[in-house]
């Protein structure tokens, strides 16, 4: 309970800070917002003084900054995120659509990384210094070092263009998930595997592990009864940190694959000075971070009785 209360307080603070910071940053960018918004709405062929003037008049952009910020914070209390300056749609509606697309992609990527990384890491950790361990070190370091942008293109070229197994890009069907999620998952899995390997090697070196084997458990039984839970603690804790990598990755990968997600939305909103969209997006990402960490706190408490005590 106490954990949740602390996280709730954190969430409120994050909301106010992010909202204010994005507002100040967007306001202090050079260039006239009305022009940028008009360019976002009508495109480079059609933006001109008349369209910028129409935008300025419609949105009342010349008003002072402080009341606008207070208005936004006030609306936020009523869970009203305002309307996008470019499309005129409510920010919540756009976010629901785009956040959903990103969250689904991120979730698939995390699941993929967990299927690929930790099992290999555990196998390597059981035989430290063995062939698998050394090979995994090289492969995971290599994969982690490849920028997601490059990974995405390499995957498209191999799996979509060369072997015609999967669509190169696009959105809408289950098969569209695989390549972008894989592009995200390889980097995550590389780290997962290392964490799992180190944890496993540490645990396998402990006395209780040797005791378990001495009392007659097979390696498999020792692993399932005494190993997995121990390995899970650092792994789950690290997932929270990976959320940051994931958000960065989603922005890049969405651009490459034409994925209508929150990264895509954020980039476009910043280009066309869509302040409510930027505030809403940043806020949702910030709160998402708090939420993920709260979830991980709870999960770790369940996994590790020492933390709960």
């Amino acid at each position, binding site marked *: 309970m106490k954990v949740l209360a602390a996280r709730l307080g954190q969430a409120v603070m994050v909301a106010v800070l992010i909202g204010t910071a994005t507002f100040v940053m967007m306001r202090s960018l050079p260039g006239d917002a009305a022009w940028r918004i008009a360019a976002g709405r009508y495109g480079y062929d059609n*933006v001109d003084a008349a369209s910028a003037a129409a935008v300025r008049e419609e949105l009342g952009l010349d008003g002072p900054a402080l009341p606008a910020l207070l208005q936004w914070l006030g609306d936020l209390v009523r869970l009203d995120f305002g309307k996008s300056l470019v499309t005129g749609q409510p920010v919540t509606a756009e976010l629901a659509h785009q956040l959903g697309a990103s969250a689904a992609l991120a979730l698939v990527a995390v699941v993929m990384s967990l299927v690929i990384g930790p099992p290999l890491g555990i196998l390597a950790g059981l035989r430290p210094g063995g062939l698998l361990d050394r090979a995994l070190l090289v492969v995971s370091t290599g994969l982690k070092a490849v920028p997601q942008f490059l990974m995405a293109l390499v995957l498209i070229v191999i799996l979509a*263009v060369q072997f015609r197994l999967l669509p190169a890009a696009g959105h809408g069907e289950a098969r569209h998930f695989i390549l972008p999620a894989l592009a995200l998952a390889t980097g995550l899995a590389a780290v997962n595997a290392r964490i799992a390997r180190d944890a496993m090697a540490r645990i396998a070196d402990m006395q209780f592990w040797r005791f378990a084997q001495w009392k007659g458990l097979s390696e498999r039984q020792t692993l399932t009864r005494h190993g997995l839970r121990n390995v899970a603690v650092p792994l789950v804790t690290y997932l929270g940190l990976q959320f940051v990598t994931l958000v960065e990755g989603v922005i890049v990968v969405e651009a490459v694959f034409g994925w209508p997600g929150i990264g895509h939305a954020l980039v476009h909103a910043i280009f066309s000075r869509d302040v409510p969209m930027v505030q809403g997006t940043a806020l949702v990402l910030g709160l998402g971070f708090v939420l993920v960490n709260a979830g991980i706190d709870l999960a770790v408490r369940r996994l590790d009785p020492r933390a709960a005590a």
Partner: protein
Amino acid sequence: MRHHLSLAAATLLAAAVPALADDTLDVVAPFEVQGAEPSTTGYIFTRMSIAETLVNADAEGQLTPGLATEWQASEDGLTWTFTLREGVVFHDGTEMTPDTVVNALEIARAKPGALQELPIDGIAAADGAVTVTLTEPLAALPAFMAEARSQILAPAAYAPDGTGTEVIGTGPYRLTSLQPPLSVKATAFADYWGAAPHIPNVSYSGVSRAETRALMAESGEVEYVFGLDPASVSRLNMLDNVEVLSVAIPRTLLIKVNAGHPFLSEPDARRALSLAIDRAGIATAVLRFPEGATQLFPPSVAGWHDAGIAPLEHDVEQAKSLLAGLGWTPGDDGILTRDGERFALTLTTFSSRAELPLVSAVLERQFREIGVELAINVTNASAIPAGHQDGSLELGLLTRNFALIPDPIGTVMADYVGNGDWGAMNWQNDEIGTLVRGLARGEGGDAERARVSAILQEDLPIIPIAWYQQTLAVSERVAGTDIDPYERTFGLEKIRWAE
């Protein structure tokens, strides 16, 4: 563990198998779908053959009947009558009547766009027709009716304040799904007034990265890929399963010059900059187009392109001597100076079109050769018209489409007679003003147009660099694809599955 891995592999394969072959014609292009609002996203609906306009244009830019079968101006040129096609039904089943057309046009006219700036006095419904009354004659009015923002949607498509809330058009395809920012789906409309489309289902996806679009074409996943980057064109040309189509379009890459700037007010200074540009090099090496521009209007802009005009040349020595004649002398670092001022300028451009920053980097080198220092500012597209308005722009690198409205007169009028944000800056020419106003009223012909081109060539209020090619990649699975130089339509209704 092994079990997990094989399961993952099986899932991957199972998902992959039905990857190809379906009955939908998939279109990919860089444009984002903002919503149902025709003033912002309407051009996607017209290109996808969902919405239609009163007037269409063919590949030569000649106006052809659309939702209007014919149009005619009164004796004094102040009243235009557009006779409407009979038996046209909107996608919601209601009939297109003169009143619905007036409604759509009035709503379009109230929003920023080409119609808003026209001398229109009123739009009224008549018997089977719509009349537009003007405060002064405008020969090009029918061309404005061919622009995407003049599309005709059913009254139920608009909110009471005129905002587009649904897309209820009259085209051969009916919208089935609209998912901003990237997706549109449509299906054949059974009650279409014209020939039924061959392929029943079409989809549109916005993909902003040109590399990704090219890879989608290469993978065979989509049938119609619009807008390819130069490097991908060379690669796709080598493939058997993809055909690359290319056509010259009425779009020009040019430098907008602030003719009020003390360094640029003399025509000779602008000529010197023009002479410094290696157009053939930029066109073939950077843009992979066959040739550079020899004048502002490309050959496809019939009437305005004058084959007899002396072409723009590349001559560094002549450029240097022109500048020397204006009192500029090279300083220690090779940059020219005059009265203690360095010949240093800022070139503003934008990144929404990938070629612009590339070309600006080349221009920086080429201008340095004649002793002109260029600082490059790559920013948002709106910085150019905004810099025009507040007078801070020095040079702007941009592209201009002369045929968003199929008659270039509208663009020429705005850019070189009025105070057009994308055209000449601090430059006025009375002769051009008289000629273009006359042409707009319907007086004069090709001789007058050629004279306009000649004045622009002589005085260089803007410096043309290259004429564009539009490229698209089409899968071998489809046939009947045309590429519209006027960028109005993808022509989906004419495409059929290849035998």
